[in-house]
């Protein structure tokens, strides 16, 4: 029996290893190709390891950073991601607190509205949205967080509300007796208790905003502002020519920050997803 279980475990391990490699393979390929010369990538050498003849060192990276205004795009991407995620975390956690603690028909309706917003496809609203964004002057990297707040709120409120139910009401009551006003109760008691969910929601939303291509392309003035996903597009030249080396280097540089953020917070993301599932 034990032997059979062991064999089954080995089979699973092999299968999962193969799956993991399949997932990692494109990223490894991008990193390898970012270190190769342009000709080596385009002439059937895309799937081989860099050799002494094809190795380009960091030339592609230098090119990627210098040629198309990478640093400026990085700045915009960072700005948009940080402001959007901050807005989502603050506003949605507060909103979920209200929905969970104030039991009324309005709060219930609000909750269902937020959950419903998750199932509305972006493509359905994107054109009217870009018009509205223009009209409201939300079409700059400084204001676009408002739109991200709207689109990110569904998932965030859903996750926060789920966890908030497991926060005992007595703790909040104790803080009120200790002398907190509602804002102090929220920021000094409730928010610190939400930390695992804050990290989970933060990472999920950051990954989405950082990698998002469609929304900034539709809303932002492309001539003035380019986020990194938009910039990558610009390595495709005219007549179908693509600067493969710098493009791969640019993608690698784009992936690095979000992978670091994910790795730092992965311990919390598991906690956060599982939080509230069982009574602690």
């Amino acid at each position, binding site marked *: 029996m034990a032997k059979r279980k062991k064999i089954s475990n080995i089979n699973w391990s092999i299968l999962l290893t193969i799956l993991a490699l399949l997932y990692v393979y494109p990223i490894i390929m991008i990193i390898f190709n970012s270190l190769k010369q342009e000709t080596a990538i385009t002439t059937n050498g895309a799937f081989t390891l860099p050799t002494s003849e094809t190795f380009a060192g960091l030339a592609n990276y230098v090119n990627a950073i210098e040629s198309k205004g990478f640093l400026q795009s990085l700045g915009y991407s960072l700005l948009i991601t940080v402001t959007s995620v901050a807005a989502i975390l603050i506003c949605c956690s507060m909103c979920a607190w209200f929905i969970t603690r104030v039991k009324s028909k309005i709060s219930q309706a609000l909750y269902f509205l937020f959950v419903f917003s998750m199932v509305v496809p972006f493509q359905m609203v994107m054109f009217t949205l870009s018009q509205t964004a223009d009209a409201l002057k939300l079409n700059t990297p400084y204001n676009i967080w408002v739109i991200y707040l709207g689109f990110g709120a569904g998932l965030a409120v859903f996750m926060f509300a789920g966890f908030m139910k497991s926060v*005992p009401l*007595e703790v909040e009551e*104790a803080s*009120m*007796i*200790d002398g907190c006003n509602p804002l102090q109760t929220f920021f000094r008691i409730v928010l610190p208790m939400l930390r695992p969910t804050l990290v989970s929601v933060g990472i999920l939303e950051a990954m989405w905003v950082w990698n998002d291509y469609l929304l900034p392309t539709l809303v932002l003035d492309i001539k003035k502002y380019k986020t990194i996903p938009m910039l990558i597009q610009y390595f495709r030249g005219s007549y179908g020519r693509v600067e493969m080396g710098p493009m791969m280097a640019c993608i690698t540089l784009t992936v690095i920050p979000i992978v670091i953020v994910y790795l730092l917070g992965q311990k919390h993301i598991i906690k956060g997803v599982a939080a509230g599932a069982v009574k602690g």
Partner: protein
Amino acid sequence: MASITFKNVVKTYGNNNTVIPDLNLEIRDKEFIVLVGPSGCGKSTTLRMIAGLEEVTAGDLYIGDRRVNDVPPKDRDIAMVFQSYALYPHMTVYKNMAFGLELRKTPKDEIDRKVREAAHILELDEYLNRKPRELSGGQRQRVALGRAMVRDPAVFLLDEPLSNLDAKLRTEMRSQISALHKRLQTTFVYVTHDQTEAMTMGDRIVVMKDGVIQQVDSPQNLYSYPCNKFVAGFIGSPQMNFLEAGVEKEGAGYVLVFAQNRIPLVKPELEPYVGKKVILGIRPEDIHAEESFLAISEKSNIQAKVDLAEMMGSEIYLYFTCGGQKMVARVPSRTGIHADDEVKLALDANKIHVFDSATEEIICH
């Protein structure tokens, strides 16, 4: 001064769910008062109204001379200990205790002095840097007490603070809380459904049922002179025996008649009940099996067959049926009575309580 006064206080949830119809109660300064009653009797709601966590629907609530109906919890000069401890999980024990003082902008050195003093009294000195999750249930409850103590509140509110602890720890904490009350000399309002806690800790006990106060009295009086059948049955373990009995006049006195038994009582209060049914109440320990007692109280002897005998060490609980009504007696274990024994037992006529069978109010003790 921190007396608490309820004047015609009403608490209603929603449109017509009245939990407390009309509460009038005066809790004296420095008193240890225990609110006791079955689940849903409104005791916790009463406590939460004092705390300001529940609004008073109508009537007036005073802490000292101040009407506090509209005063927020933080300005009522109260501290509360919750059943679930309600500690801040992200803060250390020290921070948990200091938090209320920090919010009140108390100087740092004073906070430090007060926290360490309270921690010392509660034997928490070595746990000050730990988070609540690293503590046992008893330690957490002590932190909750400490958090209330450091604030020097005028009123201490405790909402079933021991119900999450095991039996041994509960006994220990019970004496600690009583000692704390003596030391602090503050008004304590304690809510529990456990009558042992109520009897051992309270200066006075408030027995509640369906939002209505049944009786407010000292533990001894409550036990010896219950004002109605509910209080008589609620206080005491095993609970008081109740028998339906008829009242007959016999000479200058009266007799209570049930099954084949006739127990004489000289109580003029029974006059209006002659020929009617009443409820006879007698506590298990007032039913005796010793020969000496049987001899001197021949008229109140009853014959019974023991259904079950529970050996408790120093005493035996005898469960028997008398005239079709189930009863329990608490007799010394040296009597050596066993299940299925036919025994003669004597009711102590001086300890019989008689209740009106319609209103269930006391007629005489």
